[in-house]
């Protein structure tokens, strides 16, 4: 690992750690646990957060742990993300930007022969992020006032996992995960008349618990099909299962004058986050192109908090297809890798009977810093929802920058 590359990465992470307080989604994220995060890295963003059938030698696959069995070198990956978002309804339109450090993973092969690799890291699982504000005019004693609504937080996943290559090159993977985080929903009313105290309503849910992701990738099944110009035709499957999350809940309202705190509700509740299934297909076409397609299903109608279910949620279905271009031939290790994807998602949000759908296009590239190290850029643009019937449309662009550092560890160097 080049020291200079690492230093660059530290600088980037430091810069973006200062941008975490901002908005990068809409009031849809008030429902459930917010937007589900499928990716933390630029590479994953570039392939539309898909890849459940990809067993990659140079990247840590966060969709399917079975994909780690292809790792050749120890890898450290992390990224920062910028989200540019316009949120609009029939009356208003606002732009929001947010930059943040998204996650870090470390993986190293223990046995390339048996596909054994260990991986660990912390990555986002969900995201709540919205701001909305009402400006109210009044001729009463209180004068004009405004009400601000803000949602923030999300769940994170700390994981430790391994992979294994079985007979006939079947690849398996599994992780043990600790899920935690906090979901915060705050409302504040402030008055122009400073004699009138502002009021704050703070509601938070702090879930914690364990989960697992199990994955499987088949060997090349083209040997059975015999399709020309295609190789490494693989099918992948992964299941992300989260047990009941024990959640501390707090609802507090207060004003700015002394002794006014009102802890209205302090307790605990079980949160049930539904399992997530990923099915994928990938193959290499004409030696340079890795083609893939993924389907994701998550039955959010099973989500509950304190045994309460929510009509604002429905089952999630997501379809993604894309490619990754890998240069081949002499010097290919120092050539740029390109990737792109298209996706359609029936999100889990179901507002007043209107399903909220998402369309996106992704792309990106990996710029070699050295044969094993790349700087990755991912771009995703699209929209969610619609402006009609009192809904909100988000037009988003996500730009992610990350690094993937590779190093051969655990190999004894020759002594002279």
């Amino acid at each position, binding site marked *: 690992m080049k020291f200079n590359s690492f230093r660059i990465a530290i600088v980037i992470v430091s810069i973006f750690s200062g941008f975490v307080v901002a908005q990068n989604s809409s009031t849809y994220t008030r429902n459930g646990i917010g937007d589900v995060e499928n990716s933390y890295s630029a590479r994953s963003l570039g392939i539309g957060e898909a890849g459940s059938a990809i067993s990659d030698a140079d990247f840590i696959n966060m969709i399917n742990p079975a994909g780690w069995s292809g790792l050749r070198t120890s890898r450290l990956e992390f990224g920062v993300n910028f989200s540019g978002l316009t949120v609009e309804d029939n009356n208003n339109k606002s732009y929001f930007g947010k930059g943040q450090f998204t996650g870090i993973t470390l993986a190293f092969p223990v046995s390339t022969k048996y596909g054994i690799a260990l991986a660990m890291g912390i990555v986002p699982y969900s995201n709540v992020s919205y701001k909305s*504000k009402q400006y109210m005019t009044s001729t009463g004693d209180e004068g004009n006032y405004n009400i601000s609504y803000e949602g923030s937080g999300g769940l994170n996943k700390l994981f430790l996992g391994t992979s294994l290559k079985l007979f006939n090159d079947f690849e398996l993977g599994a992780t043990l995960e600790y899920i935690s985080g906090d979901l915060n929903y705050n409302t504040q009313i402030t008055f122009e008349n400073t004699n009138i105290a502002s009021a704050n309503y703070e509601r938070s849910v702090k879930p914690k618990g364990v989960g697992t992701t199990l994955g499987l990738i088949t060997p090349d099944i083209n040997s059975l099909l015999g399709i020309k110009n295609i190789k490494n035709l693989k099918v992948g499957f992964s299941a992300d299962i989260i047990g009941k999350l024990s959640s501390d809940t707090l609802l507090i309202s207060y004003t700015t004058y002394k002794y006014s705190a009102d802890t209205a509700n302090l307790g605990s509740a079980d949160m049930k986050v539904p399992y997530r299934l990923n099915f994928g297909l990938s193959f290499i076409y004409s030696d340079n192109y890795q083609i893939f397609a993924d389907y994701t299903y998550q039955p959010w109608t099973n989500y509950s908090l304190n045994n309460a279910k929510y009509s604002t949620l429905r089952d999630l279905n997501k379809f993604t297809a894309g490619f990754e271009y890998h240069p081949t031939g002499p010097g290919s290790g120092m050539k740029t890798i390109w990737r792109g994807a298209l996706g359609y998602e029936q999100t889990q949000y179901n507002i007043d009977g209107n399903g909220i759908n998402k369309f996106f296009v992704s792309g990106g590239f990996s710029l070699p810093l050295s044969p094993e190290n790349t700087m990755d850029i991912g771009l995703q643009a699209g929209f969610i929802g619609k402006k009609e019937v009192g809904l909100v449309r988000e037009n988003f662009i996500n730009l992610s920058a990350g690094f993937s550092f590779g190093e051969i560890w655990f190999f004894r160097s020759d002594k002279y």
Partner: protein
Amino acid sequence: MRLHYLKVFLFILPLIIFASCSDDPTSVGLSQLGDDLINLKKYDTQTDSTYQTSTFYKSTFALGSASRLLLGKADLVESSILFRFSYSLADSVKTQLKNKTSYVSNAWMELYPKYNFPAKASLTTPFYFRLHSINQDWTVSGFNADSLAAGKVTYDASTNYVSGNASATDTTFVFYIDKTAATNWLMSDADTSFYPRDYGMILTPAAGTQKIIEFQALNSSSSDEPSLTIVLSKTNGYDNDTLTFTPASDTHVVTGDIPSLNKQEYIAIQSGLAVESLIKFNLNLPLHAVINYAELDLTADTTKFLYGSDTTTTTVYAIYYSKDSATWANAEYDPITLTKSGKIYSGNIASYVKKWLNTSNNLGVVIRPSDYLDSVNKLVFKGSNAVNYLERPRLKITYTINK
């Protein structure tokens, strides 16, 4: 490697620029927020037909920490002053007193008037008083009118140790003291077996007095404090010793009757005499309402006010009333000041209203003079049963609640 740095920089730069930009939030998406939406509401006891009660009563104040000492009689109220001195005489003086080689040749007390009650009183307003030695041990801590009534201080009312007439100006008040009394006080310090023992003195108003003078009490700056001066002369005719003492402790005690008013129409408060009012509103507010503002308005009847030359009648205190008493020993019960504007005294008691909601225990709010230790000012307000309902105590509340 330089090329790589350049590439990295070119990608980072736009990210930083874009991440710095955001519009102010708008109302986009409000309809998705469901239960998080909040409403601003108002409650007015005058228009929301709220049952209320009010009364006034006599409490007790320990006045040992007052900055004034009140002496006199006016408007059915009278006030007495109690002093204790610590003489701590030098051994040589004690010996001379015990050997009777020195004696008290003169003694006087000097006090510093600050205000008169009522305000119209002047130097010529009749003012008479008496000085008595206290016959039993007592302490100023917690001493109040009830202590006096309970006989915790006794004295011989028939014996007056004031010698001659007082000399009074607007800034000083001097009177001479019977030399025998002064001798006894010093002998009590010089000889532990001497009787009568010294337990201090009490100044009481005498018949015919028509005013109360507010003197400066002990204070941290020692400015204008009361002083007792005793002149010792030697029997051999040589030299005089002039000894000046300031009190070790002082207090005053106000006694009298509760103001005579129509309780259906009025409530009253009076400093010193410890007359307070209690007002209670039966509010009908949502349990989890957040109280942003709660203005308590009292309508004063200034024609019934009686106050001294220190017209500190522009503010009164509102105090959270707990189960046992109105107190602010705990900072949570800090008094809230109601300020006069026209004939309305008003202040924000939002924290009290919130506490009533939190505890589901609304015992009301006490109204107390803001100068409750230092004067005998009397203020009168319209009560909960005032004929004109617009003049009754009023609570205007602005609150917020989840939709």
